[in-house]
């Protein structure tokens, strides 16, 4: 039984991890808690749904998966469209407010933006949940006591691929290193000749894309819903802080820990308290190590 919950937790955790990475990137570089991040996630899921519809639904399928190549294309398209949305949002709202340099104004504005974006989905796509495919995959035993669906394995696999890709991007490419530099110390990056505004734009692209992919993952394994991103936001924040805010690897670890802990908790307490597990865990970690698991000491 424990193995099954663990497997559930890993599936949940991998999607949370991707969302949390985007959040921690924007949090650290732009220095505010972006409540609109959840809306990027929802919009990403809906963008992909739209593309899938354009291709006439998911008909041909790859192997045991519930979808075909158009869906892979839809993921890429959704990432692009979510990036554009993030850039527009930054240009219209956050860019202007950054100048006034009042952090909480940005937070409240991002909440306003999240209200707006979430309800735009309701207006455009309707409030009902949507699914990429009408087919439901029946979980198959992969290990003794562990049943998963091929789609769930795909989600975990995609998360692993993206995390590795992100790692290579951040440690091997000029832009990736510049992004880490700006996130570490924006003014030092500026005087080193890095165009911080350019990096900020790329941060939105990376964060928005990862949010969109996380949204598609939830859409694939759970449902597509206007509120999905907002409902996940607290999990994402907990994951980012648990891992140490600003630390990309911390966010990944935090996402997995939160996902696994939330699902395992059902063994001990009523599932009704599941959402609280993330927060309690986060606070316990903060009490022991205020900078998070992988966070460095606050100066």
């Amino acid at each position: 039984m424990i193995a099954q919950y663990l497997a559930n937790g890993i599936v949940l955790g991998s999607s949370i991890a991707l969302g949390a990475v985007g959040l921690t990137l924007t949090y650290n570089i732009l220095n505010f808690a972006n409540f609109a991040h959840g809306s990027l996630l929802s919009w990403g899921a809906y963008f992909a749904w739209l593309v899938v519809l354009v291709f006439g639904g998911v008909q041909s399928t790859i192997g045991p998966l519930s979808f075909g190549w158009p869906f892979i294309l839809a993921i890429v398209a959704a990432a692009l469209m979510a990036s554009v949305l993030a850039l527009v949002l930054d240009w219209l709202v956050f860019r202007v407010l950054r100048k006034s340099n009042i952090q909480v104004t940005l937070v409240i504005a991002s909440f306003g933006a999240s209200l707006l974006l979430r309800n735009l989905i309701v207006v455009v796509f309707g409030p009902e949940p949507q699914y990429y495919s009408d087919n439901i995959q029946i979980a198959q035993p992969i290990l003794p006591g562990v049943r998963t669906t091929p789609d769930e394995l795909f989600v975990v696999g995609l998360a692993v691929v993206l995390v590795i890709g992100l790692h290579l991007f951040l440690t091997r490419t000029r832009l990736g290193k510049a992004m880490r530099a700006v996130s570490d110390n924006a003014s030092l990056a500026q005087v080193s000749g890095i165009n911080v505004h350019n990096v900020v734009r790329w941060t939105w692209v990376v964060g928005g894309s990862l949010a969109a992919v996380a949204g598609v993952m939830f859409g694939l394994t759970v449902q597509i819903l206007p509120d999905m991103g907002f409902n996940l936001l607290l999990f994402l924040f907990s994951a980012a802080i648990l891992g140490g805010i600003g630390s990309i690897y911390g966010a990944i670890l935090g996402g997995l820990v939160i996902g696994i802990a939330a699902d395992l908790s059902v063994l001990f307490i009523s599932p009704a308290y599941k959402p609280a597990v993330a927060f309690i865990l986060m606070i316990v970690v903060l009490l022991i190590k205020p900078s998070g698991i992988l966070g460095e000491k606050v100066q």
Partner: protein
Amino acid sequence: MSQNDIVLRVDNVEAGYTPGVPILRGANIEVRSGEIVTVLGPNGAGKSTLIKAIAGLVPIFGGKVSLLDKDITGRPPHTLVREGLAYVPQVNNVFHRLTVEENLEMGAFTRKSGIARRLEETYALFPDLARLRKHPAGKLSGGQRQMVAFGRALMVEPRLLMLDEPSAGLSPKLVGMVFDNVKQVRDTGVTILMVEQNAKAGLLISDRGYVLAEGKEQLEDRADALLKNPEVGELYLGSKGGLL
């Protein structure tokens, strides 16, 4: 270029964080090629503001800054590196989460080529760094961090290196080491402008110095003259005897 070419000229500059509240009120500074110039002054005199205004980090309201005869007044900071200006801030002057080598690479961000060669040259200048190249800079000691900061700034082979209080917060032993490094850097042909609290140590390695007060330079002289100047002595030691 001869020894007396002017690398940096700050002409009657007014600058500050809030419009209408200038901290610099018409400051004039000149730095010639190959010099080490130190700017001294009491707390709140505007020393750091001066250096940040030159680097493009503080808005300039009036006056002119030229680097190698090119007007750079009010240019965004990231564009100045390409003009040959490097700057080492007083605090937080390394990327904590990046390795030493990545810190140096970030210094060379604007370079298109010759990064590997320049890395080797920097390691040659600071052999300690070669050993620590894979370590995150945030985990290094204060003195090592200062070396990384210097190294990062030097990666672009700048014409002018600006240092904001390089000795701040270091133990006396390390202060000596840092100023040795400064001299070493100058000997590779880099012109240096620094702001320093530790007037004596700063002036000892400098060619010239300025004393800044109330947002304007009050004194300008050769470093050895300033060291003996009773006014400077009074400012720092409270006695009329000069710093030596």
